[in-house]
């Protein structure tokens, strides 16, 4: 069962984050991702890999959810890297009809049959986990066994601003592992326990081993579902979700240390500071694409 060790960030080795350009979803994403992932020497051979995309709602225009082309490319890449199985799992937060969301993003067209590949985390078997951290008022959570049983967990969010949390990237994306069949649609107990604090507790309980952010087309303004599309033309990936998210913030023209949960995550869950992140691929300054934020978060912009 997954039980990530919590290491203070000052004791962690530097993290590695790679930025790759991808102008659209039609190109050779699979080979691009495969070549990129190979540089991380990930321990996935003969392992069960779980990809956790951000599938939050019906998405006729394709800028709310992680694009299926990116999900499919990641799946193919991990299989090529020797993974025994690559599952895709999410528990949409607002709409109980997961099949409707999958149909709206046409995941089947990219993956093929979903029966053996997709897990609806909202109705998965669950196990109660006492939380290791006390950032929120939560003492424990029921979490899906598919998540707890995965050998290698990959958070795959869309690059978006968020009207309650500032940004939603690989850490916030982990809200989707909390099962709706236990906590509802939306997962309101997390809001009551504090959104920023819950993000920390969930990630301390099930920290992703890797993150791949779909920033080819993201969302700015009133995200995560009512904002406007914003093309950054990048994929951001790395072995530390905090470092990946802070790099995304810098690309988005936002200061990661001003995002409440990210600043706190930088003390226990990974690296926030530039000098602790080995930047690979494109330079941040070259791909920087400022995102607009709601007035309530204007202080995040740099």
């Amino acid at each position, binding site marked *: 069962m997954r039980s990530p060790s919590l290491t203070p960030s000052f004791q962690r080795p530097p993290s590695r984050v790679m930025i790759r350009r991808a102008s659209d979803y039609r190109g050779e994403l699979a080979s691009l991702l495969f070549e990129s992932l190979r540089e991380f020497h990930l321990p996935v051979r003969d392992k069960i890999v779980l990809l956790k995309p951000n599938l939050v709602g019906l998405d006729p225009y394709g800028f709310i959810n992680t694009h299926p082309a990116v999900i499919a490319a990641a799946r193919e890449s991990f299989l090529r890297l020797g993974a025994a199985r690559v599952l895709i799992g999410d528990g949409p937060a607002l709409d109980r009809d997961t099949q409707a969301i999958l*149909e709206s993003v046409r995941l089947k067209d990219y993956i093929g049959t979903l029966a053996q590949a997709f897990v609806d985390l909202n109705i998965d078997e669950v196990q109660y986990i006492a939380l290791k951290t006390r950032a929120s008022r939560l003492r424990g959570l029921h979490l899906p066994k598919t998540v707890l049983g995965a050998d290698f967990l990959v958070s795959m969010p869309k690059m978006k601003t968020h009207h309650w949390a500032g940004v939603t990237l690989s850490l916030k994306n982990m809200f989707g592992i909390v099962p709706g069949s236990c906590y509802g649609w939306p997962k309101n107990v997390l809001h009551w326990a504090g959104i920023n604090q819950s993000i920390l507790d969930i990630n301390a309980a099930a920290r992703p081993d890797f993150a791949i952010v779909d920033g080819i087309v993201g969302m700015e303004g009133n995200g995560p579902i*009512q904002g406007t599309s914003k093309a950054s033309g990048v994929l951001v990936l790395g072995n530390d979700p905090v470092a990946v998210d802070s790099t995304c913030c810098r690309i988005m023209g936002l200061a990661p240390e001003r995002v409440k949960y990210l600043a706190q995550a930088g003390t226990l869950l990974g690296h926030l500071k530039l000098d602790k992140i080995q930047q690979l691929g494109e330079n941040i300054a070259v791909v920087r694409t400022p995102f607009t934020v709601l007035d309530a978060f204007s202080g995040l912009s740099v």
Partner: protein
Amino acid sequence: MDAASESNLVESVCLPFFLRAQNADGGWGFLPGSPSRSESTCWALLGLMHGSAGTGSQASHRGLAFLRASQLPDGSWPATPDEKIGCWVTSLATLTLLGFAPESPEVAAALQWICKDWPADSAPWRRFLARFSSQRDVAPINNAYRGWGWTPATSSWVEPTSFALLALGCAPASLLPSQAIQRRQLGEALLYDRMCPGGGWNCGNPNVYGVAGEPLAGPTVWALLALQGQKNRQENRSSLAWLEASANDMKAATSAALARICLQAYDRPLPAKSLRLGPLLQASDYSLNAQSVALSCIALGEQQLSFLPSPMTELRRA
């Protein structure tokens, strides 16, 4: 797929699914082979009840025994067997039991619990504090209306409120606690307050930062079923119109089955070329879970829909 073969889905897909997926303890998980839970057992029982198996099958009896044994001492049902606190599933379990044994003590205890389950966000002191919050205009809703949450002591949402209203509305008047009328009035008012501009419901956010929320099939159908007593209200009519207009875009079994159930309950004709459940249920077996199959059973089954809330006026007379 024509109407005849559609109705055959109950016999060929739905009932075999439930018989195959029933666990040794009598309950059902959401998926075949997964441990029994109260909610999925309710869906299976409702599916069997509305399908041709009726209420008298052996599978139903065993399922009913599991459901009764899962009730907590305070009358509620938890989301998981190891949980000791009840939740919205109590309303669904009540609605289920009403179809089998409406006058049972389990139902009476559950109704008591439902009426005592107040959301915390609309408590008077919270409403007072909310007046001074900088966030008060972000998602403008009337907190004087109080419904039900997914979990106790949180916020009101459309679907759990609808389920609670259906449970209270379908229960025999003799079993209803004294607060039932007040709770129904507040709950119905909350649903109308949370309706999206133009009709339909989402989880309960009709407007955030000045942007109108988009309705969804599930919450819209459950709200409309809970508000059947006011079929001619403009809000009901516009929400029904949204549902009908959205039918062509429904590509999933759960939403399509729900839409059919609702249109039938409101005596509306089904669209000729959409909401066909056969292709949706058979195209991808990942879509088969206790809820989607049960809703398909209800939509296609021979039994009349059992969720018909009694008018509030009758309740007052009683």
